[in-house]
C-alpha cells in the first residue's frame, strides 16, 4: 500500500477547487489501498453502520500498528484511506497525539467523520485510538 502522507493529502486536496475532483481524488485514494480479502471480512472485524459497513484488521510490527481496512462503499473506502494515511504504521504515541478532527476539518470533510454519520468512520477512529491506548499500557 502506497499512500501519501496526511500532509500530502491536505496539500493535494487544497489544490482542487471543485467538489467533483475532490471526491474523485478520494475515491481513487480508496482504490489505492489493498482492502481485505473476502475470507478475512469476519464478523469480529466488522463495524456496522446503518448506511455502509467497514472491516478492520490490525497487527503490531516493531512497535508500530498496521491496519487493513475495507468498505462496501467506495467513498467510505476513500475516507478510510485518509484515516490510514494518518494512522497506519505509526507508534501508539503518534496515533494518540494525532488530531484527527483537526485533520478532517482541514480537509473540509469534517461532516463525514461526525458521529451523526452512520458510515462507521467514527467507530473505526475510536477503535484505532483504543488499540493505541491498550498498546501503551
Amino acid at each position, binding site marked *: 500500500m502506497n499512500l501519501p502522507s496526511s500532509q500530502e493529502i491536505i496539500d493535494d486536496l487544497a489544490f482542487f477547487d471543485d467538489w467533483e475532483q475532490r*471526491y474523485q481524488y478520494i475515491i481513487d485514494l480508496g482504490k489505492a489501498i489493498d482492502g481485505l480479502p473476502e475470507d478475512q471480512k469476519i464478523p469480529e472485524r466488522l463495524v456496522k453502520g446503518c*448506511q*455502509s459497513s467497514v472491516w478492520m484488521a490490525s497487527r503490531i510490527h516493531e512497535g508500530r500498528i498496521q491496519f487493513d481496512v475495507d468498505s462496501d462503499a*467506495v*467513498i467510505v473506502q476513500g475516507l478510510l484511506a485518509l484515516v490510514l494515511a494518518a494512522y497506519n504504521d505509526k507508534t501508539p504515541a503518534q496515533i494518540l497525539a494525532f488530531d484527527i478532527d483537526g485533520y478532517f476539518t482541514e480537509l473540509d470533510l469534517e461532516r463525514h467523520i461526525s458521529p451523526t454519520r452512520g458510515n462507521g468512520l467514527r467507530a473505526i477512529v475510536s477503535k484505532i485510538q483504543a488499540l493505541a491506548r491498550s498498546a501503551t499500557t
Partner: protein
Amino acid sequence: MSLDVAALRQQFPILSRKLDGKPLVYLDNAATTQKPQAVIDALVDYYTTCNANVHRGAHQLADEATRRYEQARDTVAKFINANVREEVIWTSGTTEAINLVANGLGQLLNAGDEVLVTEMEHHANLVTWQQACKHAGATLKVVPINARGELDEAAFAALLSTNTRLVAMPHVSNALGTVNPIKALTAKAKAVGALVLIDGAQGIAHGDVDVQDIGCDFYAFSGHKVFAPTGVGALWGRASVLADWPVWLVGGEMIQDVTYQDATWGALPNRLEAGTPNIAGVLGLAAALDWFNTLDKAAVQQHEKALLASAHEQAEAFDGLRIIGNATNKIGVLSFMLDGAHPADVGFILDRQGIAIRTGDNCAQPLMKKLGIPGTARASFSIYNTLDEVDALFAALRKAKMMLA
C-alpha cells in the same frame, strides 16, 4: 383544481435554504416532513403566551393550556374519524404507540398464541411484536411479499387462524412505498377474532385516514411525518379495547386513587398517558393538521401522484437503475439501486449536490436481507416537492453514475 406548489413552498421557511451554494432539494420526507410557518408559530405562541402544565393547575394559564391541549385531541379525533375523542392517546410517536400496545399484548399473550406481521415491517412494527412474543412464549408469523413488493394476500389468509391474537401491518411501506389493502386484510383478521394494529407512520400524510372505515383496533402515527414537530404522535385505539388495556407507563396523571401499597387507574384517555405530556408538541400537531386541512385534498393527492409518476418514468428510463418496490398501488417513495454503486456512495454524491435522500437499510434489515441487497437509496416525496426537483434528482444521479459506476 391543481395545487399551487410555489405558494405552498413559501410557507416552509427551510425550503429556501441553500447547501454548499445549491438550493436544498429535500427528498427525505418519509423520514420526516418539513414544517410550515403555521406550526412553527404554534410552538412559539404556546411558549410565549400560555405555557403551563395541563389538567392540574388552579390558575387561568393552566386552564387555557388545558383547553388548547384537549382541543388538539378533538382535532386529531376528527382527522382520523375516531368514534370518540377519548380514543386518541398522545404518545411520542409511532414507535411509542406500538410499544404501548405491544407491552399490553405481552401481558395478554399465552404460549400457543400467534401474532402476524409482514415481511415489509419497519423495525418499530417488528421488534416490538417479536419481543412481546418471545417473553410470552407466543409465535410470531410473517406474511411474505411478492416480487413487486406487495403482500401475498393468499398467504396472509392462510397464516390467519383462531390462534392469531393480533395482526400488525403497515398502512404504507416506508422502504417500498407499497400501499397495503388494509381494509380488506383487516376484515379477514377480524373474521378470526384477531386484533388489528395499523402502523400509520407513512400513511397519515398521504390519504384520508378513517379508522372506522378501516375497521382496525389500533392505528399508530407520528406527528413529524405530517408536518408537525418531532416527539409527538398518537395511538388511536377502539374505546372498548383501550378501556381495560394493560397500563404501560405508570405515575402521575393516569391514576384514580393511590395508597402507599396500591393504586387504581383513571379513565381513558388519561389511564394510558402518564406524566406531563409534550404539550407544545400536541399543539404543534393540531396546528399541522389544521393547516393540512386547508389544502384541497384531491389536488394534493393528484400532485403526489404526478411526482411519483415522473420519478418512476425517469427511473425506468435510467440505464443501470433498479427500482426496489414496484407495487401497483404505491405512494411517496422511490427506492432504488444503481448498478455498481453502493447506496451510501450515491447518497454522498447527491448530498454534495444539495439533494437530501435516505440511504441504507431503511430501518428494515430483515426486508433488505430478503431482497438480497445491502440497502437502498430512497427518494421520498411530499406535497411541496416539484417536478423540477424530480428532474434535479435524476440530473444528480447521472453525475453519481458517472463518478461511481
